[in-house]
């Protein structure tokens, strides 16, 4: 039998732990085995299964860009059994990783276009990969706008990177917190993401919109994008259903005939509208 064991994870060493927000951490992971590191590649939008042996596996996107070589990063909120076990780990510890799985953000097709990234809360991680990928290939794109909101100032993730993007002359960065989530020294916007999107009113001309966020944010963001003139084909989002295997066998992530793990997690709004509302 020449096939390899699909369920056998790579050993990854936690090189760096960053506290992003309350209960939210980022791990920078390096392959323990150099040969595996050299053979590994992924594209932006893909995800993996991260495991703590004895606790189980959890599904997250790869939150770093493929342009950053030598490591991958994941960002997770401590919520269940596996993420709690992950949270308790320290730099130097080892975890399991399987992947990459799933489809990709088609950034090659976006060449020559403007990009509008809209993210809410803990949904910035999947978008951070594609943001950095595009920024590292900045000459391929026209205007880049990032609108990011969280419940409160404390809940904003990647705080240093938000500042970096803010300072870049080639990025228009809009950061917002929900009303009541601001601090006295907050100088970003205050308001829900869809409201701030409407206020920012980016042009839809030759522009791709990428939206990741909690369902309620997504629900109110799509109509604003439509009002701004975005076509369904130019709006991208990701679905995050529960998964076990990551490659189309365990049977729980499908939405109708579409398997989020194989056909997704990246979908256009056109594709999303063809799916039954079971996500």
């Amino acid at each position: 039998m020449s096939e390899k064991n699909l369920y056998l994870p790579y050993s990854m060493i936690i090189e760096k732990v960053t506290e992003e927000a309350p209960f939210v951490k980022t791990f920078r992971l390096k392959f323990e085995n150099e040969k595996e590191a050299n053979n590994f590649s992924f594209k932006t939008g893909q995800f993996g299964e991260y495991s703590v042996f004895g606790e189980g596996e959890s599904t997250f996107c790869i939150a770093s860009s493929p342009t950053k070589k030598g490591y991958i990063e994941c960002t997770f909120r401590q919520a269940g059994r596996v993420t709690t076990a992950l949270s308790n780990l320290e730099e130097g510890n080892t975890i399991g990783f399987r992947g990459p799985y799933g489809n990709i953000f088609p950034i090659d097709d976006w060449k020559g276009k403007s990009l509008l990234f809209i993210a809410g809360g803990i949904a910035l991680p999947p978008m951070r990969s594609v943001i950095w990928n595009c920024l590292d290939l900045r000459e391929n794109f026209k205007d880049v706008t990032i609108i990011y909101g969280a419940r409160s100032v404390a809940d904003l993730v990647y705080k240093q990177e938000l500042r970096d993007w803010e300072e870049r002359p080639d990025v228009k960065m809009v950061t917002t917190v929900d009303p009541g989530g601001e601090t006295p020294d907050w100088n970003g916007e205050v308001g829900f993401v869809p409201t701030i999107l409407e206020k920012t009113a980016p042009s839809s001309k030759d522009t791709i919109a990428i939206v990741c966020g909690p369902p309620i944010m997504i629900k109110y963001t799509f109509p604003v994008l439509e009002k701004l003139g975005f076509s369904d084909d130019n709006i991208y989002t990701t679905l995050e259903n529960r998964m076990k295997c990551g490659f189309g066998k365990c049977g729980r992530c499908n939405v109708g005939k579409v398997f989020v793990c194989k056909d997704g997690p990246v979908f256009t709004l056109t594709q999303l509208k063809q799916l039954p509302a079971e996500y």
Partner: protein
Amino acid sequence: MEIEKKLLKKASLEKLFEKLKADGKKMYAPVKKDKLVNFALVDTFGEICDDYILTVKSAKSVAFPKIEKIVDYEHSKNSSKAIDIDVSNFPEVVLWGVRPCDAVGFDSLDAIFTWDYKDNIYLARLEKTSIISFSCFKSDNNCFCTSVNGNPGGTKGSDILLTKISNGDYLVEIITEKGKQIIAKAPELFEAAPTEEKDKNLTNVPIKFNVKDITENSAKFFENDLWVEQSLRCIGCGACAFVCPTCACFDIQDESAGKNGTRLRLWDSCCFSLFTMHTSGHNPREVQSQRWRQRIMHKFSYMPERLNVVGCIGCGRCSRACPVDMNISEHLINLAEEVKK
């Protein structure tokens, strides 16, 4: 390969069993225990039950066990590592007494376990498994193989098919290379094929619905009151999935003992309420009717469209096992009729 036909005398059946057993193969065959017939590891021919329509549980566990190790691991505070499992030492197995529908069931499992990503554990087990089926001479109202392209004497999926003819001897059909190798273990037992027609020795399973009415029109069903009506009494126990020869949905869990442990693959069911539940509490299939719809649509719409195979072989086990008497063939008849409205 072209199917080759032979005759096996009634008295030679036990000899064939003994030959295969002596060859070191693990023999799984239907055994009656506490009034229930199920596949079990057998040592002697006498343990085998031959008076059954179908076993309660399907034969799938030979290639896809209910609980199965997929990875070993060592885990301590300062070091963790995964260890691959050895699939080369899986035993050589003969599944004896499979019904033709169950043999077809492996096609559905194959389709799932080889969909782009080849599951080496499943494939290694299947490769070591030879399937000796026996045609059906009895059936009941729950049987509907003929409605889903099957047949009580169908050869698909089996390595060898035996059909009992009127004098008690067996018509032997050698279907695959694996089947040929089995016959080669005891060539002296096989004689020239009988002239008697095979079909007259088979049970008659009436066609209850046209499966194409369902597979080709399933898009029309998604939003339909039928799902609620049919599933009102479903208690989400998952018995249907656990007896089903084609259900392949699984969970993955870790089980540790001290520093060592195993990652396990376990049967699961789309009818369980927690199956799709997110950590946040959000559940895409929140109510039982959605889960029942998933079960039927997966088998009769998504699998035909994505994997080119119907995910049901018409054995009717789910109907027999259901504690609240949900009858799948009645529900499928309703769906097929719904198209004509």
